[in-house]
């Protein structure tokens, strides 16, 4: 697997340096107002700064507190805002670094615009001027100027700029491989491409926009969380504002600066400051995985997936079927069948054909015959005959036999000139006619099908010898992955065009929860709808144009990058490596994103308990000296307690940036055990950590005589 950008380390020095600058630029009130918690923090910073300056100018500490402490509090409030900005900037910076590598391929390329498919009226125009429905010609060595569909020709295309995959892929007009992406390079041949997007809307443009976070829209859950945080902020605002009156009644006047400090330590600045960084980092993790989400909403939905539709071929099984056994009909021995199959497959370059040769050799030690010198006439597979095989002349047969060398059981028994054919049941039956098919053939074929295999019938000289059992090979360790998914509460459904018997057998072997056999695009769509009607969220991947409706209907539709433009438009994610097994990782990344938010919110709120124990006694000990017993941390003085709390509050944001970027650790497990673990780490941890942190800071503050 290629991780194109894995070289960007968590806190890359270059990105960090840039982020510092951006953090200051984000002090623009128009930027700040997007985040209510940080906006309030900035307002408090402004207020304390004004009071500090006033105290300096008048020389009277009218706020009832030490101007040096006021200055420090003001400074730390600004740091709090800057740290939050920095967190966001660094997440964006990492996205930008991803985008830069994408943008390299977007250098200004000339395009050869033509007026018709046959290439007439060619003229050179800048790629950026191309609009939808323009036609361009691209030849070997040239860069495709924009996203589009191949309308004429066939070519190999190097898509490594987008996918990181170095092997070129084939793109041709019509069918499911017609989509090309701007910025990729044609390696051979010549194609005519119909551009499908207008300037600035291309796939690459959108990808760049998304990973940079520039076009990032808040996702539904992020909006809900923001409301919660804003609500908590208002509650604490009420708490702090009314506190002035309670204090007055109790005979103390609270300095405004202290109240501001109390407010900022109480409102959830930690999660407020890191929230957007978490979101951007979630997108970023997908990109690192070579999956592009078209919206943050899709990433969030991935965490909620209840049902996973997985294509059998390529996802659950290896793409190719392999010969598993030879099943002769009555009166034929297995060796005879194996020999015939062996000869018929000698020139067969398909993985299935090769596997037949390998199996025959394993079982009977047959020696290979060089197809070129054998003198055999090989009959290739065609869509019309749906058979392949070999015609053996008499003389050639003798030669082959003699060349087969020594060793018991390794001699090929070739007698007469003959012809061997292998193919699908109906094709061979038609080939040999009613007389040639033995009565037990049907039985054998059914048995193979029931076992989940594909029967390949072998006939020699117009007589059926038996059946080769071609088996779908389930990917190693896939069973364990499905067990994991089940534990996470996700149902897996295998989708296959096979008949129900075959499908059931493979489903059982792979350990999926359910299967859809004889799947058509319509049935797939129907399945998604019925799952959704039960309130479930469905994820699937697909590549063909006929997958487009289902991709659009699914809550998470991952289109393969090799797929058609229609599929890529319909899905809400595109997998650049076209690896359907990634759905599982996508779900995990979605879950990790939501967990990171929840964990840091819990941590942030739990922190407040310790802050109260630092600040409340500091504020009120003047009114009621007995309240000193609440100072459980034994902080040095009132002003050092308040300063330490505000410093802790700022520093914890920086300390948690790596966690926000990396996401909290996610190990697939049932919800109950995840909750227990996270509550312990972030809930209980959030209660305890600040007690220790504030105490340590207070010791330092007193040691340096800062307050």
């Amino acid at each position, binding site marked *: 697997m290629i991780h194109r950008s894995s070289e960007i380390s968590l806190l890359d020095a270059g990105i960090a340096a840039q982020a510092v600058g951006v953090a200051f630029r984000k002090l623009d009130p128009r930027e700040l107002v997007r985040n209510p918690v940080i906006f309030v923090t900035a307002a408090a910073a402004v207020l304390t700064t004004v009071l500090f300056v006033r105290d300096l100018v008048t020389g009277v500490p009218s706020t009832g507190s030490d101007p040096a402490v006021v200055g420090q509090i003001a400074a730390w409030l600004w740091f709090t805002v800057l740290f939050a900005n920095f967190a966001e900037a660094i997440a964006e910076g990492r996205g930008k670094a991803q985008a830069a590598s994408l943008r390299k391929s977007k250098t200004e390329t000339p395009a050869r615009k033509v007026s018709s498919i046959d290439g007439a009226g060619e003229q050179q125009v800048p790629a950026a001027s191309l609009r939808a429905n323009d036609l361009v010609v691209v030849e070997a060595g040239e860069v495709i100027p924009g996203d589009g569909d191949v309308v004429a020709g066939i070519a190999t295309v190097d898509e490594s700029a987008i996918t990181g995959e170095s092997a070129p892929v084939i793109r041709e007009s019509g069918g499911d491989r017609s989509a090309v992406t701007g910025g990729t390079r044609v390696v051979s041949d010549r194609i005519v491409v119909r551009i499908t997007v207008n300037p600035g809307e291309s796939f690459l443009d959108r990808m760049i926009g998304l990973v940079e976070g520039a076009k990032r829209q808040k996702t539904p859950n992020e909006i809900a969380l923001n409301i919660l945080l804003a609500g908590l902020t208002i509650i604490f605002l009420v708490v702090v504002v009314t506190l002035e009156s309670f204090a007055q009644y109790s005979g103390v006047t609270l300095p405004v600066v202290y109240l501001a400090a109390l407010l900022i330590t109480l409102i959830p600045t930690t999660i407020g400051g890191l929230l957007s960084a978490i979101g951007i980092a979630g997108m970023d993790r997908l990109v690192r995985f070579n999956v592009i989400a078209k919206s943050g909403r899709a990433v969030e939905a991935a965490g909620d997936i209840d049902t996973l539709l997985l294509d059998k071929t390529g996802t659950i099984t290896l793409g190719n079927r392999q010969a598993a056994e030879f099943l002769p009909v009555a009166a034929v021995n297995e060796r005879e069948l194996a020999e015939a199959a062996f000869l018929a497959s000698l020139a067969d370059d398909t993985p299935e054909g090769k596997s037949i040769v390998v199996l025959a050799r394993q079982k009977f030690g047959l020696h290979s015959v060089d197809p070129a010198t054998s003198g055999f006439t090989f009959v290739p597979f065609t869509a019309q005959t749906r058979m392949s095989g070999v015609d053996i002349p008499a003389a050639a047969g003798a030669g082959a036999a003699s060349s087969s060398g020594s060793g018991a059981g390794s001699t090929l028994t070739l007698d007469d000139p003959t012809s061997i054919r292998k193919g699908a049941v109906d094709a061979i039956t038609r080939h040999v006619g009613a007389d040639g098919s033995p009565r037990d053939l049907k039985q054998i074929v059914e048995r193979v099908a029931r076992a989940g295999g594909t029967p390949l019938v072998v006939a020699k000289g117009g007589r059926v010898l038996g059946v080769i059992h071609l088996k779908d090979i389930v990917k190693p360790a896939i069973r364990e992955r499905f067990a994991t998914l089940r534990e996470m509460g996700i149902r897996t459904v295998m989708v296959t065009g096979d008949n129900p018997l075959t499908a059931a057998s493979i489903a059982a072997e792979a350990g999926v929860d359910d299967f859809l056999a004889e799947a058509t695009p319509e049935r797939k769509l129907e399945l998604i709808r019925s799952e959704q009607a039960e309130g479930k969220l469905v994820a699937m991947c697909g590549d063909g144009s006929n997958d487009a409706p289902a991709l659009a209907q699914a809550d998470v539709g991952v289109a393969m990058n090799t797929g058609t433009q229609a599929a890529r438009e319909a899905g809400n994610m595109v997998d650049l490596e076209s690896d359907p097994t990634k759905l599982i990782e996508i779900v995990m990344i979605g*879950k990790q994103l939501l967990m990171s938010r929840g964990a840091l919110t819990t941590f942030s709120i739990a922190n407040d*308990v310790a802050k109260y124990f630092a600040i409340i006694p500091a504020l009120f000990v003047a009114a009621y000296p007995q309240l000193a017993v609440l100072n459980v941390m034994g902080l040095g003085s009132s002003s050092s307690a308040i300063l330490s709390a505000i410093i802790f509050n700022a520093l914890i944001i920086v300390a948690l940036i790596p966690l926000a970027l990396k996401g909290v650790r996610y190990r697939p497990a049932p919800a109950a055990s995840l909750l227990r673990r996270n509550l312990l780490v972030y809930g209980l941890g959030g209660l305890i950590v600040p007690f220790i942190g504030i105490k340590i800071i207070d010791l330092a503050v007193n040691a340096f005589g800062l307050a």
Partner: protein
Amino acid sequence: MDSSGLIQIVLYLVLLTALTPIIGEYMARVFSGGKTVASRVIGPLERGIYRVCGVDPAREQHWTGYAASLLAFNLLGVLLLYALLRLQAFLPLNPAGMTAMTPDLAFNTAVSFTTNTNWQSYSGEAALSYLSQMAGLTVQNFVSAATGMAVLVALIRGFSRRSARTVGNFWVDMVRATLYVLLPLSIVTALFLVWQGVPQNLNAYVTAETVEGAQQVIAQGPAASQIAIKQIGSNGGGFFGINSAHPYENPTPLSNLVEMLQLLLIASGLTWTFGRMVGDLRQGVALFAAMGLMLVVGIGVTAWAEGRPNPAMVAVGADSLGGSLGGNMEGKEVRFGIANSALWAVATTAASNGSVNAMHDSFSALGGMVPMVNMMLGEVVFGGVGAGLYGMMVYVLLAVFIAGLMVGRTPEYLGKKIEAKEIKLAMFAALTTCFGILVFSALALVVPAGLAGIQEPGPHGLSEVLYAYSSATGNNGSAFGGYTANAPYPNTTIALAILLGRFLVILPVLAIAGALAAKKSVPASAGTFPTHGPLFVGLLVGTVVIVGGLTFFPALSLGPIAEHLMTGVVP
């Protein structure tokens, strides 16, 4: 407190737990529209009411229609009650010759009783005619309780329905709550109370000559009928001024036990009803467990604190640890003792009841803080009938939303996704409680008219004010005592806090019900956040304590906490 006190507390908890499923199951049937044992008798009456009022019981309402009906009904209730209180001098059944209430007091009382608060700035036997007591207060005791239950039932339907537009019919829910639940229980209880010695008549007050030769006016009247519903419907407004400490309201230990059970009976039963109606009893049991846990801790703290002698009394040699009084007996009835007074105080503030059988103002600082904290948390420890559970649902939504994210899914509760809209409404409700208590208290502590009512300066005075507005906002109605509330400023602001705490919570809750009903329901899987079992119970309690605690800790630290630290503890 001695072992007999402990035994009584345990007995109480066991009885409450045992009765919960019985009443819960019955109410589930009532609110699902099913037949009950009482249907044969009540059914014709119910149908008659619908016919007279022109209500089509089969026609359900959108949440906005439901809310509009509720508001209209309550507004009418306030106006009628206000008129009755102002005009009582000219109306019949007034043997004691009561005059009209002042406008501010009448407004306060009308609002207070319509909202199930029953804050009383007056003494019943000195201010109200029998007609006002019966046709005014007692009627509102029924319908205000039914209103709370109706809101809860609408919310439950929000959870249990899928892609639905409606949440039920307000009129039907209210009529059924009154006829099938409140009325039968009240009749039985009233008869029981009469047996125990509570008066139920329309006679004029009698004057007796005491042994010392003094003249004593003994008030009486239709008390039993009102006391029954006052306890059952979590209303709490006493027939007499000193409420259930009065021997005519609560004459015997047996009547005390029954009245205490009724404080929490329906609210506790509703947790079972909830589980039954959402189709998963474990969910209701988890809520019961969370509430029960908080109740037991509260009782424990108060009983412990009240079981200690008053340090001031010890200082002058009038009491000692393990002394003959058995603890802090100031303001407590000898026939109830420490355990039953502590138990009642915690239960009445856990429920939004507010009736008292002892003076909370005389409790120790910590003992008195528990009732106050109960109210500040929004009375979600069982709480008022209906109101407690729907208040708890606000916390459930917040707890599920924050912690639910930690399992890596969009938070959901009972199959409903909790999204921006629900969070917005839940935060609105949470903010209402915080605003009502803190802002009104803060105002009262700076405005001379507010400060005037404070009896005791220092932290105890702050507690008095804080308690009053907590009681009002929480629609509890219990009074700390001490704070003089019958003056235009407190009467008006307390009434405003009551209105705020009632309707600005009901409206968002109904909106949540509507939003949830419209949603699809996600089937539970291994990946679903489990909302039953000890982990969730702990999480919910933690959320209530942390969110409530963070909001009120600063104020509490200047009130009861400071007072407690200043009085000190007897070694």
